[in-house]
């Protein structure tokens, strides 16, 4: 009986979404205040119903209700309770429910924090989000109801894919979804602005905090995915250019472009149409990501569904969203053109270049990801695009981007001169070349030139971004006599920007160092055998039997020594889950700021000496890749605390919305 209540809750949520999408929209159009006022209660009720459905599904998992097909397919009585609860999004139907829950959560947030916005505008934003929600709730009810019953009821569930029984599974999908679905807010703001014909700096200022929050979640989600793959797949890789990874990376690139273009729109009233297009693109890519990942087009651990009806539905939905919003853009966009001018040498130009480069990067990834699908769909045979393609294309684009980032850090709005820029940048450039290049030559002295050049490029760019970012703080100080007072007077946005850019530098250092200096050995090891890589000696001590809550494991033990000193003990595992024959590799990792030591077990080898196939890695600076992402998230958080967002909210309550000049700095 209880699972049926779940379906009812979803149906009621759909009704609420319908109300939320229609009345406020019509009310905003005709200027009927009571109709617009429906939006907030409807959004709250919709959230309540979806949350109820989610709670009911969680309950079904908690009590092992295998009469629900989704529970039977994704859980097992032996599963620990925390994995039972996270198994809710361990399969297609439940992850769609999580999608809806996150969407209604964002909608609720918009409903609660939009009181300072003009009623019409807020009503339109909520209505657009209601429309998106209708799409997903209908999708669930028509093609993937998580509450569908199973008959006869099995005595035991099929179990959650062991790969997903991990801490990464608990946090990665919700983070990523918060980011994906957060783009729906940016989309809602953009569409509402198009409908209302008001694409102005105030609109950009309202959107910015929302886009920043969504971008933070997306950043964290992508980084977590990378970290998870690194330790869970046992290959020591942190990015595979897998279509599924690309599906989460493309919205991130566009969201990053959107953050920068919103800065220009807010401060200078420029790039409005472009910003709207970016918001539409970011959300469309989130939907495309959902389609790619969930439709079974890409078969991987992420693709739960193989039902073509679902793929067709999402594709149609995607078509309606993209087609509809572009049509609206075509009809309403041009009338909102205009704004001030800027010179060729200015921060605006550099931010435009930033946007172009990010979009080009996204486009090349999109082509590499979709090309095999298109060729296959047209009967051209199976093929795949190798990771070298992505690296070859991506590295040059990002290098140019980082070079320009340094210039942009110091460039003035509206008009600047090459002479002034050169005077301000030559020291930073010299410093970057000397520090980065010097470090590269020292580190790679024994390697051949191509590698040294690559390391030098990566480190020089990272140092360049670092120096110019700090320099940008210095040049913004209004009062250079008292450093402390000047620093205090800077807007939080300026600090957020610097933090995020430093994060990029940190990530690039990590990528450069890991790629250039990692060492790997794949070998056959019997207990007592040793292997040395990069000065670290790994001694294989043997394998012991271990028993987990719902699995049995062979746990290997490696003692690692460096210069005769004991450095670490690694305990990689090979797990066999009781519910099925899928063996799982758990890498043994000793993490450090400057290096990771990594061991994973392959298979027991033939022969009587107890040998295994083993993978050993030394990964210098690999943590920096994710550390950089943490910096970026922290930067977003700091930027959010900027007074300007709060001030406008308070001011808005009393006076009509004006195009008030924003404080300087903090693009």
């Amino acid at each position: 009986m209880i699972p049926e209540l779940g379906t009812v809750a979803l149906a009621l949520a759909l009704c609420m979404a319908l109300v939320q999408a229609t009345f406020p929209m019509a009310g905003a159009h005709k200027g009927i205040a009571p109709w617009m006022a429906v939006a907030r209660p409807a959004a709250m009720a919709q959230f309540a119903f979806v949350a109820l459905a989610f709670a009911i599904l969680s309950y079904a998992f908690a009590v092992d209700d295998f009469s629900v097909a989704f529970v039977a397919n994704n859980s097992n009585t032996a599963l620990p309770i925390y994995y039972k609860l996270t198994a809710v999004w361990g399969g297609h139907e439940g992850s769609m429910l999580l999608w809806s829950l996150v969407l209604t959560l964002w909608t609720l947030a918009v409903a609660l924090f939009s009181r300072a916005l003009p009623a019409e505008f807020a009503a339109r934003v909520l209505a657009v989000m209601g429309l998106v929600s209708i799409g997903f709730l209908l999708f669930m009810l028509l093609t993937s109801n998580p509450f569908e019953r199973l008959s006869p009821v099995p005595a035991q569930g099929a179990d959650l894919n062991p790969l997903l029984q991990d801490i990464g599974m608990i946090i990665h999908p919700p983070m990523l979804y918060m980011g994906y679905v957060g783009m729906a807010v940016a989309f809602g703001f953009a569409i509402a602005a198009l409908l209302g014909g008001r694409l102005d700096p105030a609109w950009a200022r309202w959107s910015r905090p929302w886009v920043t929050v969504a971008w933070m979640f997306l950043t964290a989600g992508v980084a977590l995915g990378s970290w998870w793959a690194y330790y869970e797949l046992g290959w020591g890789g942190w990015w595979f250019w897998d279509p599924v990874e690309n599906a989460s990376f493309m919205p991130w690139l566009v969201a990053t472009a959107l953050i920068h273009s919103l800065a220009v729109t807010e401060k200078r009233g420029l790039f409005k149409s472009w910003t709207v297009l970016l918001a539409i693109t970011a959300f469309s890519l989130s939907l495309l990501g959902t389609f790619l990942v969930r439709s079974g087009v890409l078969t991987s651990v992420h693709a739960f569904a193989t039902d073509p009806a679902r793929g067709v539905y999402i594709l149609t939905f995607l078509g309606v969203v993209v087609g509809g919003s572009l049509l609206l853009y075509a009809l309403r966009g041009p009338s909102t053109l205009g704004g001030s001018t800027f010179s060729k040498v200015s921060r605006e130009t550099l931010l435009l270049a930033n946007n172009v480069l990010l979009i080009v990067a996204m486009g090349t990834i999109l082509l590499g990801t979709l090309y095999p699908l298109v060729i296959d769909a047209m009967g051209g045979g199976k093929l795949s695009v190798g990771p070298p393609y992505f690296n070859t294309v991506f590295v040059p684009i990002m290098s140019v981007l980082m070079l320009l980032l340094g210039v942009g850090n110091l460039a003035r709005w509206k008009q600047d001169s090459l002479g002034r820029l050169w005077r301000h940048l030559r020291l930073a450039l010299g410093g970057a070349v000397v520090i980065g290049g010097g470090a590269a030559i020292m580190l790679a002295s024994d390697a051949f030139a191509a590698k040294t050049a690559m390391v030098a490029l990566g480190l020089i760019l990272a140092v360049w971004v670092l120096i110019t970012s700090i320099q940008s703080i210095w040049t913004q100080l209004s009062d250079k006599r008292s450093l402390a007072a000047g620093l205090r007077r800077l807007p939080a946005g300026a600090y957020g920007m610097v933090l995020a850019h430093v994060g990029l530098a940190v990530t690039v250092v990590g990528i450069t160092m890991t790629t250039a200096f990692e060492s790997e050995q794949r070998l056959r090891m019997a207990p007592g055998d040793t292997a040395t890589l990069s000065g670290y000696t790994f001694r294989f001590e043997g394998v012991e039997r271990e028993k987990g809550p719902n699995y049995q494991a062979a746990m290997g033990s490696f003692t690692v020594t460096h210069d005769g000193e004991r450095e670490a003990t690694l305990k990689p595992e090979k797990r066999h889950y009781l519910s099925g024959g899928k063996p799982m590799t758990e890498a043994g990792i000793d993490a450090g700021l400057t290096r990771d030591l990594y061991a994973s077990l392959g298979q027991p080898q033939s022969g009587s000496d107890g040998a295994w196939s083993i993978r050993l890695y030394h990964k210098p600076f690999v943590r920096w890749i994710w550390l950089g992402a943490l910096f970026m998230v922290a930067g977003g958080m700091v930027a959010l605390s900027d007074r300007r967002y709060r001030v406008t909210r308070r001011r808005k309550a009393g006076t009509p919305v004006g195009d008030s000049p924003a404080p300087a700095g903090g693009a």
Partner: protein
Amino acid sequence: MTPRRKKRLYLVALVLLGVGAATALFLTAFQENLILYHSPTEVAEGKAPVDRTFRVGGLVKEDSVEHSEEDLKVRFTVTDTNHDVPIVYDGVLPDLFKEGQGIVANGKLGGDGVFVAEKVLAKHDENYMPPEVAESLEKAGAKPPHSMARPEGN
């Protein structure tokens, strides 16, 4: 030209330059990194290239896996039930690699007709059949093995 037009022209040039450079990069990198799939039958018919990386897939033939006792070298045969391809691989096999399992290997065909694999892929789930392999089996007229049976689930 008005300053406005000049600016626009300049923007268009900038965009074109970026797109042009990216396209050039894209095309060369793309050409070099397209990896085609060939079924064992196609390999047997000589349709697969020599000295260029491609993918081959099929079922690992029963009793064909030979491990070396000194190192990680392994020899096995994949089949689409009509034709076989012998494969050598030096590395750690994926967890789900076993006889009877559908796998895909990336690598090059040597002159002796032995496929030298750089990578062996068996996907994350034992119920999963690589779509390439399923298609090759179908073309070869074989019945899909039991592992195709589960249409849904993780």
